[in-house]
Structure formats: C-alpha cells, structure tokens
C-alpha cells in the first residue's frame, strides 16, 4: 500500500489503464482530506517530538461483484482521485487478479521509485568531494 501512496497520482493512473475498463465499487468511506502529525527524534535517535503535519487523503471502498473485497487508500497530499485509485488497487490485490495487479501496477511503480531514488543518488554522487592529500616535500 505504501508505494501506492508515495507514487505520483498520474503514474498510478497510467499503470491502471492496463487493468481495463472501469472497475465497479461502492464507497465505504468517501475520500477525506486530513493530516497526520509527522514525528522526529531528538538527535535523530533520541526522544520523539512533533515536527509538523503532512496532508493525507484516505478512503475505503468495496468492489461490487463476486469478490466483494474491501480496499483502503491512504495517500500523501490532497488528491481524492489518487486515494480512490490506491484503494481500488488495494481491493484488487485481494482478488484472484492479484498477480496481474502486481505485474501491471505494483512492480512498475516500485521500479519507478527505485529509479527516481537512484537518479537522485547518482546526481548527488557527482558532487561527492575527492580530497587530495597535500604531501610536503622531504628535506
């Protein structure tokens, strides 16, 4: 579920096109925008403290049809459609379409995220300092 929340909404929507036509569902909880308080730790490892909040959108739905599985969507930001898509994928993962959804949506999103991080680390890597040791001449 995490990768669904972290992925850009557009990217998630594009991957879901592979799953074909509209998927029928009923809302259990309409998308709701709220916040979670993000915590840190003093010194990085010490006692917890509150930093500030972060916007989050959540929703819950049930697929209509034979496997009436329930899906939850929790995504970063305020995009209701993003939360809806995340909940749909979550629900589909609990049906016999699991393998298909993993291949079409989850794995590609994970790969994109890994590529994004690697690109950032490679750009940072180009700014890594190489120190030259200055050797004083003998004598």
């Amino acid at each position, binding site marked *: *579920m995490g990768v669904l929340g972290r992925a850009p909404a557009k990217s998630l929507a594009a991957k879901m096109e592979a799953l074909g036509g509209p998927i029928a569902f009923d809302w259990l909880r309409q998308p709701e925008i709220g916040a*979670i308080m993000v*915590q840190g730790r003093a010194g990085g*490892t010490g006692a917890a403290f*509150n*930093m500030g909040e*972060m916007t989050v959108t959540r929703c819950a739905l049930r697929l209509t049809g034979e496997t009436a599985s329930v899906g939850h969507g929790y995504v970063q*930001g305020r995009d209701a459609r993003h939360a809806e898509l995340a909940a749909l994928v979550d629900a589909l993962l609990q049906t016999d379409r699991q393998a298909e959804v993993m291949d079409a949506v989850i794995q590609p999103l994970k790969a994109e995220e890994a590529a994004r991080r690697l690109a*950032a680390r490679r750009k940072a890597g180009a700014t890594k300092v190489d120190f030259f040791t200055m050797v004083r001449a003998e004598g």
Partner: protein
Amino acid sequence: MYVATKGGEAAIENSHALIAEERRGDPAVPELEAAQIREQLGGAVDRVMTEGSLYDPDLAALAIKQAQGDLVEAIFLLRAFRTTLPRFGASAPIDTGAMTIRRRISAAFKDLPGGQVLGPTYDYTHRLLDFTLAARGETPPVAPEEDATDAAMPRVADILGHEGLIEPETPPPGPEQPYDLTREPMQFPAGRDQRLQNLFRGDEGFLLALGYSTQRGYGRNHPFAGEIRMGTVQVEFTPEELGFPIALGEIEVTECQMVNQFKGAKGIAPQFTRGYGLAFGQAERKTMGMALVDRALRADELAEDRLHPPQDEEFVLSHSDNVEASGFVSHLKLPHYVDFQSELVMLRGMRASAEAMQKEAAE
C-alpha cells in the same frame, strides 16, 4: 485596550479589490502559477511548510502567491488552513539514518563513511548576480550523474557514539506521547520535545540571530557542525482500521547535528554534547540556528549557568513564533481610540496642573 467599531465596510471591500489588483501586477506580464512557485521558488516553499507546520508544497506555493511573497503572511495562511484538517493520527518518528541523501557534509570529520556530498548548495557560488537568468528561455545544464551515493549513510554522531565520546541520544522506555503544541498550550519548564516542536515552527530569522549570539558569547557552547544532511525520508503511519504501518509518504528534510564541547559535570565525564536541528525541505540555515539554540536551552540539564537570552526557555519559546509575534505587534493597528482618548485627557490634566504649579511658584 482596543474596541469594536462599526463602519468602513466599503473601504475594506475596496481595499481587498486593490490588493488583488496589486497582487496581479501589470496584466501585460504573464500571471504566476502556483506550480511555478512550487518548482522554482523551493526555498520559500520549504520555509513556509516548516514554519507553517504543514508539509504540502502545493498549498505552500498557493499561500506564497496569495501573500505576494510575504512569507510570514504565507505562513499565517498555511497555519490557518492546517486547523481545518481532521487529524488522522501521528506518524512513527522518521528515520533520518535511512535518508536517501542528496547532501551530506561534516565540518568535524573529513573522511567519513559515505563521504562528503555537496549536493545542491550555494555555499561555493560567488554571490554575483547571474544575468543569464534574466534572459528567458535558457535551458539549464543537465546535472551530471556519477556513482550513486550509498543507499544509507551512518550518522556522524553514531560514529562518535561508538567510542563513548558523545552523549548518547536514546528514546525513553515505553510508548511515547510527545508534547503537542497544536493541542496543548505552552508550559514551563518545557521538556525537550516541546522545545524542539517550538523551534521547528520557529521563525528562521529569530533562531538564526539567537544562534549567532551564542557564537558571539551570549551562551557560548563551542559548536562544530558535526553533520548536516538533506534528502528524502519515508513517513510511516499505522491507520487504526488496518493495524499495520504503511510508508504512505516521502518527504524532504534537512537535519543538523551540532557537536559541542562539554567539560563534564558531577557524575558526567567530559564528552561532546549535542544540539539538534530539523526542518522540512532544504533549510540548512534554519536547522543550524535551531541546533545552536536547542543546545543553549539545555543549560540547566548540563549544569551550565543560565546568563543569556538563548539559554532562557521562557524568552526563546515565547517569542520564536512569527505568527504569534506578528499578531501581537499587528494588534497595535486595531482601534485604540478610547485608550488613546483617556491618555490624552490625563496628559492634558497633568500639563495643566504642572503649569499651575509653575505659575504659583513664580508669584
């Protein structure tokens, strides 16, 4: 004391129209989109998110546009919006040790595992105006890519910790319920959790100035920038209805670990002590100021004399918030007509009696 007054509705409406017109500026110049602010004015966006206490780059960009770039006003707007959001809960504390690093430097250790990574910084620029930026349509150079930095880098403080040379930072046992200033009023003496939340939201200029004053001798604590790191961390949250954690978000943060001299005290061996700074986005100056002030505020705990403003938590914590500060200073603009009228009457009375006494003395 100020009083409620009536009247001026039309003037206020027209003032709103005037500010909207001025915000738009010359219609011949294309209008700024919030997305442009988000992408191209990252420094402002990050400051508004940190001091506005809400991580949402789109909303921060909108606030900056609405406030015409007045960041304290934008912070106020974001704080006000924040109060309208239902709270779903709290995240697990972020793990900055697992950060995907974009910048990481240490002024204490040259050869640290993972290396010194400059990342995007203005530190080595010449601070000369770049007129090519004034010309439109410039395509920026593509940043080169080389071997990736390590996926996670050890913190400098953890390296020093292995030798016992630096005070350890460990969480208290049991479940934690850190102080929440958005729910509870300020109280003194304040715990470090309350202080750090206050400093996180605190005004960058105020913390920078106070931090600077500690360097100049007002609460001197011999700091080294042990480590500054900037990059992305995951935010983990456990929804009640699910009962398991989801890493539902990724945020950019800057962390500063100041390492400070400490000559020891009763029962504590001489060791390095620590000050901590943390902020949303890229906010190096803010986190350095915050870390200096955090360390200064630990005076009591480390048996140091509290002699200067940065060591006085009532002074620091009560004045660090720019929304509160600007509110109280701005309230001077509210009608104080009755107050002022009574002062006038009193002043006239005093002058009249003084004159009368002078006259008497002369006669």
